[in-house]
């Protein structure tokens, strides 16, 4: 057990033979993946490939049918709270409590993540500034557009300065400027954090990530660095994506 723990601690994220069935439908089939510390990996794949399922399993929101996952050496299935404390997440289209303001929401989440006092207050100001929601900081979220909620989702993911970010389509719903800003934030974060994100935006992936895991029908098709994939398939990342998922289109 200790050997497993030691081995899994060298990586930020370890996924071992993770499978998930939804009422008999196989959404993820024995997925195994290792993401080293400060590595930035994109999970690519067509709709229904199993990307969101993978991220939800990693965050303990789903129970796997088989396999397990570790975050910084902590088994997500056995010690969910401890594992998740090291992660900042955006999953699916984020929704917030409409009657609370961003400051109240971030205070709530920050307190749950064991932040308090001046540290929490200044960090809230910092992340709100980072996602450019200063003018909306004390407005009830019920008045927010989808893009603004997405910005707030990014703020809450970064709030406790976690070493790992797990992001499901982080730029979804944002206008071109918002998408660019998110990319810039992630490019800064990648220097000191492990980023594991799912995206349909190849341009975003190329700018933010070092490696790509391409999955389809729950199967891992390829997992390698972007330059190596380009060399191997003699095409752009988009070309690699189209070539490997060709059979399913």
């Amino acid at each position: 057990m200790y050997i497993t723990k030691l081995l899994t601690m060298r990586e930020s994220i370890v996924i071992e033979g993770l499978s998930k069935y939804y009422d008999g439908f196989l959404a993820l089939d024995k997925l195994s993946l290792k993401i080293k510390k400060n590595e930035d990996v994109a999970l690519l794949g067509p709709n229904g490939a199993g990307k969101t399922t993978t991220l939800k399993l990693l965050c303990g929101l789903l129970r796997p049918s088989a396999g397990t996952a570790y975050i910084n050496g902590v088994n997500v299935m056995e010690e969910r709270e401890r594992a998740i404390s090291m992660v900042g997440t955006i999953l699916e289209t984020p929704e917030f409590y409409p009657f609370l303001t961003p400051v109240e929401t971030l205070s709530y989440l920050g307190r749950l993540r064991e932040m308090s006092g001046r540290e929490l207050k200044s960090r809230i100001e910092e992340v709100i500034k980072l996602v450019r929601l200063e003018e909306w900081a004390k407005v009830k979220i019920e008045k927010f557009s989808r893009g603004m909620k997405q910005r707030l989702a990014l703020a809450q993911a970064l709030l406790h300065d976690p070493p790992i970010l797990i992001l499901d389509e982080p730029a979804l719903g944002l206008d071109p400027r918002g998408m660019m800003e998110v990319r810039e934030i992630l490019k800064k974060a990648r220097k000191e954090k492990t980023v594991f994100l799912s995206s349909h935006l190849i341009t975003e992936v190329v700018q933010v990530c070092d490696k790509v895991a391409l999955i389809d029908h729950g199967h891992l098709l390829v997992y390698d660095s972007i330059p190596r994939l380009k060399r191997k398939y003699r095409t752009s990342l988009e070309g690699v994506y189209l070539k490997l998922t060709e059979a399913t289109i």
Partner: protein
Amino acid sequence: MSEFEKLKIVTKYELLKQFRRKRFYGALVLTLLAVILVIALYKGLDIPGKLPISDSPEFFALFVTSAGATIPIFAAVFFAGDSIASEFEHKTGYILFPNPVKRSTLVIGKYIACLTVTALIVILAYVATMIALVGIYQQLPIEVFGSLVLALVYANSVLGIAFLYSSVLKGSMGATIATLLTIMLVFGVIEISLIFANIEPWFMHGYAGDSIASVYGISFAAFGGAMPGGGMERNPNPITSFFVMLGYFIVPFILSIWLVKRREML
């Protein structure tokens, strides 16, 4: 940070959410109007004059608080129906659940917040009744306080049932309707059937809830008319009823925690 500290945080923000909702203030106003209406009907229609019983503060309190016995049901269902289900239905769970806090802590925090707002509604109904009692009779029967305690325990039992449905069902509306149907229809039908079969339904939710009125010690025969089941009186023992209602809270609430811990964010 201990789970207890986290529980305090969850409760604080769940309460903030409840107090920010218009439904809380709507429920306060409706409760007050309902109590005023019952008092007006009692006096305006001269209810004691139509029954073989003389007017008294106890009878007045019994009439007003038992006529308003649905207040704890609606208050509890109003606040608890969507407490868990909405996290899944409105996807707010994607922000709340990936945090280092046990789901049981989240459920208990939500419950405490729901209980607090429900209790405020029930207490308001009783305070209005007490003010009327002092104003009309210049007396405040001690039984009113016993009735209030039982009403709070009754509301708590409704919360337990509402939490159970909210943990199982996908939608908040479904959970609310299912709770109301269970309490007012399913339990009601079983209870009436038992009474017709000459079995005292002391273990039934609604019958135990009648202790809110029986605590005044006034015979239900005072209301006149034959009782179903050959004249069996609905006169539940307040102490037994207290524990029965506690059971109707504990069992569904524990089940609710267990279900939420297992429930997946699909």
